[in-house]
Structures are given as C-alpha cells and as structure tokens.
C-alpha cells in the first residue's frame, strides 16, 4: 500500500492502514532523531511521540501540500525541539536534565569521528545542520529535503553548498593535517 492509499484509508476510518506508513518510515525517522540526539532512549521516546502524533493527525493531513515523508520529518524535528525545550525547563526548575548522556559507539575511531563531526556541526545553524544530516547521513535527495523544509530544490542545494563551505572554513588546520597524515600512513 503506497502512502497516498494509506492516508486515504485512514481518512475513511481504516486507521490500521497507518501500519504501512509506520513500517516504511520508522527506521529513517529513528536514524534522523538519533542523529540529532545521540541517545537511544531519548530517540525512542521522540519516535514514539512522532508516530502517535502522526496517527492522531492523519485525518487532517493534506496530500496536496507535501509528501508523508516530509510531514513525518517535520513532526520529528519539532518533537526534538520540544524535547530540548522541556529538558531545559526541567533543568531550570528541578536541577536535573533528562537524557543528557550520549550513547557513543564503543569503537575508538568511530567515537573520535563522531566527536570531530559533532564539534564541526555544532558551529553551524540548525537548518544547515539538518540538511547535512539528511543529505550525507540519510542519503535523502535534494527534492526530498526540499519537501521537508517547504522550499524548492535549488534553494536547498544552495544551503547545502553554503553549509559545506562553512564547515570547511571551520575545520581546523590541525585536524586536516592529522587526517592527511593518517591517510598517508
């Protein structure tokens, strides 16, 4: 069952058709949320919230205004923002933060790569970071990314180009030299 048929079925009362949407996108949404939180339990909570919200709102989803995938990414992205707002508020009032630790991979080289990439990505604005994550890590096409942000393809391409240029500028010379050296060895 394709997305549009599933949405139509849900609208006509067959809400179990949502299963097709869930099965198709759950891994992608999880990978996206995990890439933004780096915490398994937090990612699971946000993914649950995303799909529950999508199920509740499926009847009001307008198929002429975008794809189901783009819609789910927007819900997930907002859920991540909400999560950090909540965590910030809880910290302010109750001196404890929810899910602050990161589940870094056990492999040392992988951990180092994560740390370097995260340091670089932290220096650019959230939208550019999301576009890098979607294009490089999630291998989404520029068209798909454009749908998520409600923009046209050339706009997203230009943002991607600017994001890469910004990262390149921010990349310290030492990192570059070390990487080059490691590669040569």
């Amino acid at each position, binding site marked *: 069952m394709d997305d549009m048929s599933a949405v139509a079925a849900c609208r006509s009362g067959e*809400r*179990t058709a*949502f*299963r097709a949407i*869930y*099965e198709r996108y*759950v891994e992608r949404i*999880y*990978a996206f949320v*995990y890439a933004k939180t*780096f915490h*398994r*339990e937090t*990612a*699971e*909570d946000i*993914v*649950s*919230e995303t*799909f*529950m919200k999508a*199920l509740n709102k499926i*009847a*009001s989803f307008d198929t002429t205004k975008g794809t189901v995938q783009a819609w789910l990414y927007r819900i997930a992205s907002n859920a991540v923002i909400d999560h950090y707002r*909540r*965590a910030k*508020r*809880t910290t302010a009032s*109750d*001196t*404890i933060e*929810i*899910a*602050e*630790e990161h*589940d870094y*991979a056990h492999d040392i080289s*992988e951990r180092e*790569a*994560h740390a*370097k*990439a*995260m340091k*670089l990505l932290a220096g650019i604005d959230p939208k550019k970071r999301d576009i*890098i994550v979607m*294009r*490089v*890590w999630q291998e989404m096409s520029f068209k798909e990314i454009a749908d998520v942000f409600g923009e046209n393809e050339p706009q997203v*391409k*230009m943002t*991607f*180009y600017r994001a*890469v240029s910004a*990262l*390149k500028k921010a*990349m310290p010379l030492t*990192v*570059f030299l070390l*990487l*080059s050296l490691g590669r040569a060895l």
Partner: protein
Amino acid sequence: MKKEVEAILAELREIDPSFKPDGKSRELIETLLSAKPKAKIDAAFRAQLRKDILARASRKRTTMIDLMMEHRRIVSIAAILIAAIVSAPVITVLMRDRNAFSRDERQSTDDRIAPPARPEAYEKAKRGANERLSSSTQSEVSPIGSIVKEEKARTRAAKGASPVPADDAETEHDKDKAADTALAQTKKADMRREAFAENADEGLASPKAAAPGKSAAMGASIARAGENPFLAREQYSGSTFTCGPRSAAMNTLSQYLRAKRMPPAQAVTPEGLINTAGYSDDIPPIAVTHTACQWNTAHTLLVVAIGRPSQGEVITVAFSEAVREYRLIANGSIIPSGPNACIAVYEIVPAGTVDTPILARATRGAPTRSALAAPAITELSSAPMHVRYAAALAEFGLLVSGSAYKGTADHAHAIALAEETRITDSIVSMMREMKAAAEKR
C-alpha cells in the same frame, strides 16, 4: 566511501561550477561520512511501538471527546459563538431590570413613596433584627464607632441642630440598611456556630479545632493548601522527586487513635503513610506502572518504584502528550522492613479516555537507567504487589487527610486492597480503626 565522497563533491561542483574539490573539501566529506551514526533501531522497541500504534488505531474514534479533540479549533470557535448568543439576551434582560430598579428607587426617594411590599418572612426577620439592634448594649459598640458618633454629634451641635438625631429624623433607607447589616451579622454568627458544632465531636474532637472561629471550611482549605495540585503537562512536562526519609505518619495516627481523637488534616498525609509502612518485597531498580485509579474512574494512577535508592537521589518522570494533567500524590522511602525502596504515586488526568495508552519515562541518576510505563493500562487487581500497596495507602491517606481530591475514596475499598498486599497486620488494623472512627463520626 571514496565513491560517496566523489559523488558529493560532484554535486557541489554542479551547484557551483567554480567549486574546486581540494584536499580539505575531500577530508571534510570523509570526516562527515565516517561519523555517520550506526545505531540501529531496537527490534523489541519497534515491535512494541507497532503494537501500541495498532492498538490506538483500531480504537474507534467515535466518542464525543475524540471528535472534539480532533476539531479543537472549530469546537472553540463554536463555544465562543454559543456563549455570545446565550449571554446577549441575558445581559439585555439584566440591564433592563437594573434600569427599571434605578427608576423605581429614584421615584421612591423623590416622592417619599413607601418601598414595594416585601415577603412576610423578610419583614419578620427585619423586625427581629431591629429589636436586637435597639436592645444591643453599649459594650457592643466599638471604640472607633463611639468616636465617630461623638464627632457627628459635635458637628450637628455646631450647626445648631440637636446633638442626638431623633429616631424620626432617620430615613427609611437608613433603617433598612441597618436592618440588613444586622441580619447579615446574625447569619454569619449562625454559620460560625453550625461550623463549630460540626467540628465538635463526642470523643473524637480535633485537638486544634477548639476555637469557634475556625470553621470546617477553613480546615478544608488548609488541607488543600498542603497538597500538590494538578499540573498541566503542557506547562510542566516533567516532574522530579527525591528519595529520602520523610516525616512518619503511622506513629502519629496511632497516637491519635489511642487518645480517641481524630488527627488534624495536615498531621497524616498520604506521603507520610507511604513513607512509614513496612513492605517486605524486593522492588526492581526502576519500574513504572500505569494502572486504574480507584477513587476517580476518569483518572489513572502512575506508580514509580525505585529499588535501593541512594540518599537524596533525584528521579525524573517525563510524560507524553497523552497525559493532560498530573498530580504527585505522594512519594517516600520504605524503610522499616525489607530492602530500602522509594515509591511515588501520581494521579493522571488522561488527554483521552482512561484506556488511552500513556507514555511516561522515569529516569534515575548516573549512569542513566530508565523505565517506560507499559502503555496498556494494568488492572489494579493484576498490578504488581508494590503498586497495590501504594494505591491502598494513597487512598487511605486521601481519606485521613480530608483531601480535596479524595473523590469516591472509600475506607472499605482501601482496606480490601491493603489486605491483598503484604502490608503488616498492624497497619491494616489501624486502617480498620480509622474506618470505625469515621463511621461513628
């Protein structure tokens, strides 16, 4: 990876033909690609979420609340319109009456026409109040009142009028006003007497309820002030509680029962009861259970249990949007028997119906350990023993403390639930004594 790097570089060149794929660009793309997270979704989580989604999806959305929740905006606008339509004629009628009353009043004052006839009962009460007023002694007049009277008399004398105003000089309006004030004072005094009579009890008088001025209503408001209120999840999405010893309540309760006196509202709270009751079963490091609320069928309970907590350990509970409001009824450490444990009981107002699965995650210290509430609501009869134990004492605590949130809480029910668990016999017998005292009252 080299292929992927070259593909991305080609894309960048396509976007900007002047782009030169130098060594630094290549290394940057390689760094990003090698940092790609390899986390896979947990199969058990995926299966559980699928089950939850299908359970929710198969639930028929035909209830009025569901439909209203789905079309919140339309419902809000419709409600405002209905309110406006309904209130417009009411306001018009009220305004007309007010204008008519003002007209009547003006006419009555100007033409010295007697006010319209009032019911016989009112006139009788007024006469009584007037008699009481005229027979009141000098000691009932406040010193400030005397000073004001003297000042008025001096002013009158200065103007050449009689220093003491004659009774017939007073207007009908002044008399009415004085009579009404006296009636209100009499009513207040009667209410105070009734409240005091309610508080006073043969053998079980509350030790602090002796002053006649302290009404039952005031006692209730004190009890409410000591309780946690319901919090909206939209505003407070997370809650925290600390594991550590609290004030004991069972000993206090036992002392009052021995003295055949009812404990004051704030002396025995659900928190104190949960804190001191002995419970011997081992409690897991962290467990969250979502179950039925026995004193309010529209609400549910969330019980968070922490096994072997460290002193002052802070536990965080995060709620999903399926929770509309929540209230921390009690939390405390179970100390006397069995391993040390900490239990918190939340009363939940679900956003949907009571059978809506809710998501609540409790998290404790470093290293982080957390537990997610089973989405399906657990029947209280099949809930773990510690959950039934906490629910029984929470219900009993609401009753003893005269909680504003006690709903349909019932001693017999709390006792039956307590008997199912492994609460020590002395606590159950104390609950029975309290039930008997409450019935006698």
